[in-house]
């Protein structure tokens, strides 16, 4: 379990990082916290010619308050959210979610951008950023573009990132004062990837309500119609939950459907306590 021979470069600004990353003439990969890339290298699932370390790239470390939203540099570490070193746009949700990612040792190094680019369906940030309607700023040598989280994840470990393109930052709309959120995941043990997860964000002032199921076989699923029902009926909407989850996951096993239903119900109950 040792990686193949590869070159390594640590960039300090985004221009040189993108320059080094090239255009796909050989295998060049971005490494950030290395918490997914490390094992993949050792298992030789990734055999790069070069790794570009972006953890010191200035532009990826910035955090900006835009008034209605906050922009987090992609290299912001999970621990920075957990420790409230960076402000939380989501009224404590990001801090709470971050504190439940894997183990502290992983959170010390792992970054939000790295987790999103890796796009493991069970990763906490994947479900959470979709629930918060975050925008990702992607950049390549030719410029930048914004992609909504909901459009970014195309499947398991598959994203909208193009060749030579990296996530520069994540912009999260601020929740208003009377917003509420719920997040629940079912893990076999502390620190494991989830078997089922769900995130619910309700922000009446912004007329925003989103319900997301995660830890699926593919990208997170947004339950749009159900979100409308939930916004109107609140806790009473739970009565329909079983059928809704069942219909949303036609290919899942009965046990998986049950677990996703439970995760979702418990997330909703955090928003609408009895």
């Amino acid at each position, binding site marked *: *379990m*040792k*990686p*193949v*021979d590869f070159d390594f470069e640590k960039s300090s600004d985004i221009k040189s990082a993108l320059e080094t990353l090239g255009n796909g003439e050989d295998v060049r990969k971005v490494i950030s916290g290395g918490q997914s890339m490390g*094992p993949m290298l050792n*298992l*030789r699932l990734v055999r790069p010619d070069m790794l570009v370390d972006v953890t010191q790239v200035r532009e990826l470390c910035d955090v900006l308050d835009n008034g209605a939203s906050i922009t987090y540099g992609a290299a912001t570490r999970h621990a920075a959210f957990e420790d409230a070193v960076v402000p939380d746009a989501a009224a404590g949700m990001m801090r709470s979610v971050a504190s439940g990612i894997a183990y502290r040792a992983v959170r010390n190094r792992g970054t939000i951008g790295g987790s999103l680019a890796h796009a493991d369906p069970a990763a906490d940030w994947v479900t959470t950023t979709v629930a918060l309607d975050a925008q990702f700023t992607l950049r390549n040598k030719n410029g930048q573009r914004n992609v909504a989280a909901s459009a970014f994840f195309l499947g398991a470990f598959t994203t909208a990132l193009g060749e030579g393109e990296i996530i520069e930052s994540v912009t999260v709309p601020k929740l208003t004062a009377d917003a509420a959120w719920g997040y629940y995941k*079912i893990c*076999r*043990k*502390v*620190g*494991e*990837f989830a*078997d089922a997860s769900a995130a619910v964000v309700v922000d009446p002032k912004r007329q925003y309500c989103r319900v997301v199921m995660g830890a699926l076989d593919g990208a997170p699923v947004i339950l749009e119609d159900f979100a409308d029902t939930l916004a109107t009926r609140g806790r009473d909407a739970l009565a329909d939950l079983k059928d809704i989850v069942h219909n949303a996951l036609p290919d899942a096993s*009965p*046990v998986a459907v*049950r*677990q996703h239903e*439970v995760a979702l119900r418990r997330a909703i109950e955090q928003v609408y306590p009895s």
Partner: protein
Amino acid sequence: MTDQGVGARVIRKEDDRHLHGRGRFVSDISMPGLQDVAFCRSGIAHGTIKEIVKPVGNEDKVFVATDLKGVLPIIADSGIPGFKVSEFPALATGKVRYVGECVAMCIAPSRAEAEDIADQVVMNIEALPAVLDTHKARQSDSALVHDDWDDNLFLTTSIDGDIDTLAKTAPVQVTREFKTARQCMHPMEGKGVLAYWDFQAGQLVVHTSTQVPHMIRTALSEFLGLEQSMVRVTPPDVGGGFGYKCVLQPEEVCIAWLAKTYKKPFRWIEDRREHLTAGANSREHHYQMTAYADKHGRLLGLDAEISVSVGAYSVWPFTACIEAAQAGGNLPGPYDFSIYRCKTYSVATNKPPFTPYRGVARPGVCFAIELMMDAIAREVGRDPLDVRAENLVKGAQMPYNNVTGKHYDSGDYPKSLSKAAEMINAKDIRTQQKSVDASGRRIGLGFSTFTEQSAHGTKVFASWGLPLVPGFEQATVRLTPDGRLEIRAGIHTIGQGLETTLSQVAVEELGIDYDHVRVTLGDTASTPYSTGAYASRGMVMAGGAVSNASRELAKRIRKIGAHLMQCNETDVRLEGGRIHAGAASLSFADIGKAWYLRPEQLPDDVNTMGLEVTEGYKPDVDSGVFTYSTHAAVVAVDTETGLVEILDYVIVDDCGRMVNPMIVDGQLIGGAAQGIGTALFEETPYDAEGQPLSSTLQDYTLPGAAEVPHMKVEHFETPSPYSRYGMKGVGEGGAIAPPGAIVNAINDALQDMGVELTEIPATPHRILTAIMHAEDKKAALMEAVS
């Protein structure tokens, strides 16, 4: 006793180096010219090797079976009639028989470069149907793991009892099927071996992470064709054994062959992926059982069929039949009944060769009999605690010969159960259970009682038909000129604290200061032959040997002391770190100095054997001494998610006289942590082609700190009448009981829902499946009624 002798809570000698990260393990050893080895392993469970193509330009860095001139296949035959012999080649020949089997090895200055070469080796293997399922493997149309056999059975054994008559009269019959998953052992340090040629000694020197250095020397010399005096096995620190390192590994043969052939240093260090695939080698049992009882649940007889998937080959020296044969002998457990019939099947499959894991067959049999005991209790409508208590062998029956001829030497089994019930507040739990939680969380209580045969004697091992029968144990003690004590024993230290406990034994006999004792273990060049550290034998056997050697040394010290102090030998006392006679006293250094430096001061009739003694030990009755224990668990089952939380855990243990109670606690708690893994988490599943589906620790779930609860531990100290100081072995027991206690607790929690689990690990998936099945059944019933 002294405050540092037998029974004292002294700090372990091993702690200082290990807690400071200064232990020395195989991978810490470096030497000039060292070459790393990477193995090419079969990616196919069962197949015919068509061709192995070495990469152009690197042909001399790659070795296949035909290159290993002079190496014999590993053969572990059994003396039990009917046993079929397998040949386990160090590198595969002809066929591959499990995913992970070594096919070729590659050498390079670093492991990464060796893996680069391994990447380029082409293994052209034609797949054959894989033999995976224990039952299908027994059917006549199954593919054969070994083509020259006429079935897939290493061995079938049977114990006969008159079940047929009992079946006609017994008022209660309970039939169940139980399953335990295939598992890995997960010592923190995996396997590792480094070998080189010592030109000065004319020896092949092998540093290997092993529990059994002297046996490895015997085996390497046998399978490499070297005289034993030309092989020195000297293991460094070993980061956990658990049985994983108690057999000869094919990798050890390969690395030793390289060093012997090229007279240069080579090493191989197992990685976790190799461990999780090629090392998935334990615990896969299947039980079909019927228990017969009276209407109060008193067990009258037991009928069982046990199948163990033992993988492709027989391991040396413990063989492919140790697990199933032990399961058959141990299934009756601590219970008093007289009719037993059992058939066991050691089934060859295309999986890694079975290796005895902490507790050997007993975690499986304990799970099966303990779940059966609860099933009987439910059947007769009584509390399992009462039914279990009534069926246990009673203290007044000791010593007790059970239905399979095991000689239980001492103890009070029902008392251990009642103590556990008291410590876990069984009565309160029963009250709590009456109020059902609306959130779907249910509380359950479970017990598990077992006996642990330890320090088996030679006759016991001989009856298992092993190719190498473990013998008695010897140890050497030596007083140095400056009055310090050196202990040398052939058993090895694998994390169980033997450097500490053997020192305590010497302190007990010699009254010497604990800090003045130094222990060397396992080096075949300097220690007496020992078959090693396994089967909870170390403390009783090596401890007994150190005790005998120390007693002889004490005699010689008294003689010299008496002469120097001008008194009678009988007046000389060894205590408090000095040698006393009346008001006079000498230091151990005075004795050492007299013998080594000023021999003219010695008496004329001095024993010229000097201050170095080698003595051996054999227990008075060597059928084994039986530790016993009760574990009790309270769990909360989330019936919506299938997750289990252990709310309380109690261990009541009786390992006879404890040499160091802190080490005993460590053994029990560490073992129980592994048992929790067996009960709830650990499993190596395979797909239909025999591919292991858990090849990283992301897929193979181990319990972590958050999943292992605080455990309340209580000890009885009933001395064995047969061993020195009344000691009994305690290395394995902690791992035996948890699956029984925890799954009984889960079933207790879920019994109102009509749920009974009979398979481990009790994963959320299995629990939810069982709950949903019960719900469907209930719904169907309601429909039928309406």
